[in-house]
């Protein structure tokens, strides 16, 4: 079997509103993939399609080889899902709720019993087995939500913003819990919090306004995010000296020139510390050296703009 989750050209319209467009990706067995994007990017929509709650307008999604539309029930039986809102029956006890969820997932009574014991231990809910869910704090409800998602040991675990709306200590605990539980599962996790993906995921898909705009390892993304401004400048003048002069400007991290030295009209790419606008200094340097400034512009990276909309700071989120 290729991937545990295969998503091809998913497009979803709500009425005339285009929520996601041509989303394609694949998740291999055992991978933990982060779905990172600002609010309204289309994360929940994508997850609802993968879990069979919503049908796509175009495109296909398959889990464990079963199409979510044609073989919906088989596909769904391989999924554990924690929706963004953590829906729970507040008038049931933790144990009663888990037993119900196990039963509708088709588990055998004996296995339900053993697994309830195991997930209650894993999610540290031992003291609350017979507590009504309505009496639990948000953080504990989150644990109950996670417990039901992993109860039947699904092949694929889908977690929609699992740390949203709970206090910072519980966020840390919840992440640890996901990390512990993710071991054997294939996990798709959505978040709008940047540090969360680096903590939990092997791979990150970045979604913005319904489109997947990048796919990478968290480490590479981190490098791309290192706060830099990019400038492109075209100069008529000697190449080596120009490179040297540009490098000396305060705040410049790196200068590269892609054209070779034959011509004296060259384009230089400058990386500078974030927050500095080097355009005045660069133009003055060029002029004072007696060279001609042919072009000078800031290069805006679309990925960085998206990052600006993400929550990079934990404090903002809570």
């Amino acid at each position: 079997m290729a991937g545990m989750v295969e998503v091809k050209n998913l497009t979803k319209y709500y009425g005339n509103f285009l929520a996601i467009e041509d989303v394609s990706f694949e998740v291999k067995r055992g991978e933990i993939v982060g779905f990172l994007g600002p609010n309204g990017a289309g994360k929940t929509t994508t997850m609802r399609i993968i879990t069979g709650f919503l049908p796509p307008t175009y495109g296909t999604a398959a889990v464990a080889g079963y199409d979510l539309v044609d073989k919906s029930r088989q596909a769904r039986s391989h999924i554990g899902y924690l929706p963004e809102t953590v829906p729970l029956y507040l008038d049931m006890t933790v144990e009663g709720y888990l037993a119900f969820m196990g039963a509708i997932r088709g588990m055998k009574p004996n296995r339900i019993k053993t697994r309830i014991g195991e997930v209650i231990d894993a999610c540290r809910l031992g003291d609350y087995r017979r507590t009504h869910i309505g009496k639990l704090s948000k953080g504990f409800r989150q644990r109950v939500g996670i417990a039901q998602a992993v109860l039947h040991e699904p092949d694929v675990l889908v977690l929609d913003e699992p740390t949203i709306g709970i206090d910072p200590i519980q966020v840390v605990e919840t992440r640890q819990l996901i990390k512990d539980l993710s071991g054997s599962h294939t996990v798709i996790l959505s978040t709008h919090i940047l540090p969360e993906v680096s903590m939990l995921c092997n791979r990150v898909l970045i979604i913005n306004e319904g489109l997947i705009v990048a796919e990478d390892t968290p480490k590479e993304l981190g490098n791309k995010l290192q706060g830099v401004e990019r400038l492109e400048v075209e100069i008529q003048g000697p190449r080596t000296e120009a490179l040297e002069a540009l490098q000396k400007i305060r705040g410049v991290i790196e200068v590269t020139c892609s054209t070779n030295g034959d011509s004296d009209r060259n384009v230089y790419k400058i990386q500078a510390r974030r927050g500095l606008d080097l355009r005045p200094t660069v133009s003055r340097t060029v002029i004072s050296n007696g060279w001609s400034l042919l072009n000078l512009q800031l290069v805006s990276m679309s990925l960085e703009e998206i990052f600006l909309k993400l929550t990079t700071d934990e404090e903002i989120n809570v």
Partner: protein
Amino acid sequence: MRNTATIAWKEIKGYFTSPVAYVVALMFVALTGYFFVRSVDSILTGANFPEASLRGLMRQISIFILPWLAPVLTMRLLAEEQKIGTIELLLTSPVRDWEVVLGKFIASMTFFLAALAMTLWYVLMLEWRGNPEMGPLLSGYLGIILYGGAAMSVGLLASSLTSNQIVAAVTSLGLLVLLTFLEVGADQVTGVASTIVGQLGMTTHFDDFVRGVVDTSNVVYYLSLMAVFLFLTVRSLETRRWR
């Protein structure tokens, strides 16, 4: 089938832990008790029962109790799932939509049957003081169970259409009052229209049962009503899924 049973059992337990259900059961007992005493009020004078049957009681349950009992018992069943979002977990588990609907229907019927079982006490009293005919008693119970099933399925459809329990209850109350009084409405029009309107009414098909006649067409009427409304409920869940 196991899924249906699981869902039914969850809702049945839900009824017995909900104060609303106890209030409803209490009102059912009080009202049926009152109707029963009225229909045999010579019990107060100690004379033999003039009419040893539950005819009056069954009619009154159908007209005065089920139109509010069914909405109250069903309003929560699907509306609440949609309000708190648990419908998302229910519909993403490997359960078929009709299993969900049937499970909820069975739960509401179980509660209704449990309430109805309390009227068996009146049968005992009839046996004790009079000499009731068994046939009309049995057919009367069959009739009211079918009538109740139809009423519950109407309520379930209303509950699937909204996430607000009150809206669900008012909708099914409206529908049931309409279906109950179609027979009266039929008298206002003439000819074929009168027949059609009359035949659609829920009360039209009920009298035979309390008189001891089990007519297939009447049984088919109530079963069709149930099938149609349960089917519409399943479709309504599906369109929610497909929206």
